[in-house]
């Protein structure tokens, strides 16, 4: 849990987590198995359609949360259920403690509930002298270790069988073997005993159906059924966001929940409970049933147009399953109580700014969580917005204020980039023979240690903007007129990539322009939470490149391209800039799609019989722009023998300024990537993004690897028939 005081301390925790070899491997194995299981579980289903339906239905419920609560309460009271509403965590805990007191309950069994984790219910009840036992195996284990869950669905994923055996030996006072099968049996008996003695059962609720005042519980172990059957009192603690109008809504979510969580079609038990059911241990033969609804900021969140979509979350945990950062550092350093992408956001709203402010920096913006979210939540951009809010509340730090000041002034910014060439002089430039790239010979002191895992590129002698006038092709009667959006990395570090691009489609009837007033796309500013400056550079770009003049705005940096595509959101439509941003974004296309789908270049355009090449799919291309086939197709047409790479669409760990802030994590993610690349046996690694080129090339150069890293434009230009 996040009790760190500053970023330095947080990084210290992160480093420790990175050193936890067992945890990393356990999560890593799951991360590799998960996409396969998920795809199988959804086979033959219209996943996109289902997600869109869930999102729409949840949005509707969120809008009507207050009304649904009233309806639920009415129906519930008719059935004899006691309904409570808790404003915050403390209130919820007190209500539950007082129910225990009134009913004379001393021993409590609990079935897994994230909401109870949110309120830290156990601490409170134990403080009141009550005996609380978690009955979900993973929860029980971490309860005994006095830890929080490290994953929403698999709370003890970070622990080994030996650790569990040791723990069970303590509990039973007998020596336990580390056979999982046996440990599970021991837990079964030990916990059965607790069920027998319990007075009160506490559960969460995956659904609260307003129409009939029914709650739905989804579990695999069946402990929720025992918790709601044996004790004479049942208390369900449930976030207001679980309210849903009808059974149909619940069933719809249930189609996605287990599939997205673990790749199961359905969990072993789904239980629908309405009213105080038969209970032979209770006086009168009927259970006493309470439902405590927790607000804790949800009502306010529902009214926040920017953030209300986070309440769509169905707690499947998928956003953690696919997150490359979670994969490296695990739950305790990638969340406070809620973990993964959604955790970074919810922490701010449920647990406050102090718990969230360092965590929220630790997102690399790879978009993997967004692509997998069962509720269609735009997690990466909300994470950045949380960060921006925190900055607005606490003050922007000097680095980012400075950066945004510089970036808003294109001339100053570009001037600084140009002079960087001189600034790097004392450190020297070396030619990476194998890698066909220039690197800084000696890293400046401040970078030397942490960034030694990869070589860093040197600033080019001449930026592309100075080269372009000399290479601009003359085209009579062009088929297409296009503008190049260069992006800072390519303009100033890798102008050869843009040059190659121009050469690839020269003679193909394409008139090319490079409007000089263009500046940074603004993505780094978004990453740093500088929303005002982000909008200002966007304004400069939409005015620098008039969409009316061009058929396409071609971008061979997908990070820029996907950010340019988001311009309409920045302007929010409406005024003339908003309309301009719409049209601008519409024209933006990545280089592979342009060559493959628009120009329809074919194998005839290229010399065949080239070397074996593998591919790295940049996050902002495959997920940000949803482009999957075009790069592989054009690469093969370009005469290369394409060999797929394991986890080809997983992030390389670059993430722009991210790799500067969290170099250790960046390095770990990169290591996986490089291992996978080298395992393909390819001679060339091709990718579509200058950032990925920087990261992967730098890493391979450091390893002294023979695999050459090239941008897509370069490899195609080289094999183009003249």
């Amino acid at each position: 849990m996040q009790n760190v005081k500053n970023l330095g301390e947080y990084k210290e925790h992160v480093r420790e987590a990175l050193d936890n070899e067992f945890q990393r491997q356990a999560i890593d194995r799951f991360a590799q198995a998960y996409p396969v299981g998920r795809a199988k579980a959804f086979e033959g289903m219209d996943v996109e359609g289902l997600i869109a339906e869930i999102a729409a239905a949840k949005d509707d419920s969120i809008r009507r949360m207050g009304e649904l609560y009233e309806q639920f309460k009415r129906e519930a009271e008719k059935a004899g259920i006691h309904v409570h509403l808790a404003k915050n965590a403390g209130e919820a805990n007190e209500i539950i403690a007082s129910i225990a007191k009134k009913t004379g309950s001393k021993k409590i069994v609990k079935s897994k509930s994230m909401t109870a984790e949110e309120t830290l219910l156990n601490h409170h009840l134990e403080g009141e002298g009550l005996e609380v036992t978690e009955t979900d195996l993973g929860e029980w284990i971490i309860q005994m270790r006095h830890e929080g869950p490290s994953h929403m669905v698999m709370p003890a994923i970070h622990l080994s069988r030996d650790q569990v055996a040791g723990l069970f030996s303590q509990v039973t006072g007998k020596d336990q073997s580390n056979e999982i099968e046996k440990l599970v049996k021991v837990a079964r008996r030990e916990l059965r005993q607790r069920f027998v003695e319990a007075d009160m059962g506490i559960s969460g609720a995956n659904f609260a159906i307003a129409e009939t005042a029914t709650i739905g519980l989804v579990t695999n172990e069946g402990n929720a059924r025992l918790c709601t059957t044996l004790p004479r009192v049942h208390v369900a603690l449930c976030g207001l966001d679980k309210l849903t109008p009808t059974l149909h809504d619940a069933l719809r979510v249930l189609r996605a929940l287990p599939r997205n969580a673990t790749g199961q079609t359905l969990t072993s038990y789904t239980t629908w409970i309405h009213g105080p059911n038969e209970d032979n241990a209770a006086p009168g033969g009927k259970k006493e049933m309470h439902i405590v609804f927790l607000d804790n900021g949800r009502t306010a969140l529902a009214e926040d147009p920017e953030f209300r979509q986070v309440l769509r979350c169905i707690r499947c945990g998928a956003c953690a399953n696919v997150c490359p950062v979670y994969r490296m550092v695990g739950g305790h350093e990638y969340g406070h109580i809620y973990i993964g992408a959604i955790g970074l956001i919810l922490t701010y709203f449920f647990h406050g700014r102090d718990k969230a402010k360092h965590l929220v920096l630790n997102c690399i913006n790879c978009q993997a969580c967004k692509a997998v979210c069962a509720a269609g939540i735009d997690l990466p951009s909300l994470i950045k917005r949380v960060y921006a809010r925190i900055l607005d509340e606490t003050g922007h730090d000097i680095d980012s204020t400075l950066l945004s000041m510089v970036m808003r002034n294109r001339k100053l910014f570009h001037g600084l980039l140009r002079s960087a060439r001189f600034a790097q002089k004392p450190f020297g430039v070396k030619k990476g023979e194998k890698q066909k790239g220039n690197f800084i010979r000696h890293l400046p002191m401040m970078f030397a240690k942490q960034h030694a895992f990869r070589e860093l590129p040197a600033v080019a002698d001449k930026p592309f903007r100075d080269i372009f006038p000399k290479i601009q092709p003359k085209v009579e009667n062009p088929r297409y007129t296009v503008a190049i959006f260069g992006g800072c990395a390519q303009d100033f570090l890798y102008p050869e990539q843009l040059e190659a691009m121009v050469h690839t489609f020269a003679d193909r009837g394409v008139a090319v322009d490079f409007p000089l007033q263009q500046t940074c796309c603004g993505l780094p500013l978004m990453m740093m939470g500088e929303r005002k400056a982000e909008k200002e550079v966007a304004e400069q770009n939409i005015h620098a490149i008039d969409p009316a003049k061009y058929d396409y705005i071609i971008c061979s940096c997908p990070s820029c391209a996907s950010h340019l595509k988001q311009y309409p959101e920045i302007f929010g439509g409406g005024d003339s800039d908003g309309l301009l941003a719409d049209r601008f974004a519409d024209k933006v296309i990545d280089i592979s799609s342009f060559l493959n789908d628009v120009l329809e270049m074919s194998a005839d355009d290229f010399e065949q019989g080239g070397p074996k090449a593998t591919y790295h799919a940049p996050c902002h291309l495959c997920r940000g722009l949803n482009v999957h086939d075009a790069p592989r197709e054009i690469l093969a047409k370009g005469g290369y023998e394409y060999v797929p790479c394991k986890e080809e669409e997983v992030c390389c760990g670059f993430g722009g300024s991210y790799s500067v802030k969290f170099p250790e994590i960046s390095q770990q993610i990169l290591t996986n990537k490089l291992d996978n690349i080298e395992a393909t046996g390819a001679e060339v690694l091709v990718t579509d993004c200058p950032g990925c080129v920087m990261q992967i090339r730098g890493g391979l150069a450091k390893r002294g690897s023979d695999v050459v890293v090239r941008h897509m434009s370069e490899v195609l230009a080289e094999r183009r028939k003249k």
Partner: protein
Amino acid sequence: MSNTERIELFTAKAEAVSAVVKRLPSMKEATDYVVDLCGAKEACQLLISGCGEPLSQKAEDLCEIKQDKVVAAPNLSQGHYDALAKACDKNGFVCKRDGLREHLAGIDIGFTLCQGAIAETGSVVLDSDSEETRLATMISEIHVAAVTVDSIEQDFYGVEKKLAELIAKTPSYTAFITGASRTADIERVLALGVHGPLELHVLLLDEV
């Protein structure tokens, strides 16, 4: 989706979560199946799952409660229950339809008649309003769930109407049961029977 296709899909999905699926003509054969299964079960030991492991004193005490092989069938009609009880008696098993709280250490077989089934997920739908029904399906080592083939629906939406009726009663408690109780909480290794049954058998009956 035709009847046959639904049966096939149900069988495939249920077996995928390690349920045993059998097609039988009627309740009579189902009764025989339960009795045979109980007879074959751990012929030489009465120990309930977990009791052979090193336990704390308290948990071990619970193990000592169990003495006989027990079959529980809380929701059968009187006629079907009598037939089962008779067959159990002949084999020396205890047959019960209520009072299951006295058997919290565990019983051998819980036998229930279900109200519906979902092909796409391989689940059975069970009205569990009665505490005895809930216990029979939770404290048993093996849960045998009988359901008629004509009540198998293709998917959730197919059972929606029936489910809506079941949950509209006040009070009500309804379950979708899919395979045996399971966990993967330790090193993501799948283990069956963590709290509930170690096995689920689904008997698809032509008629009851």
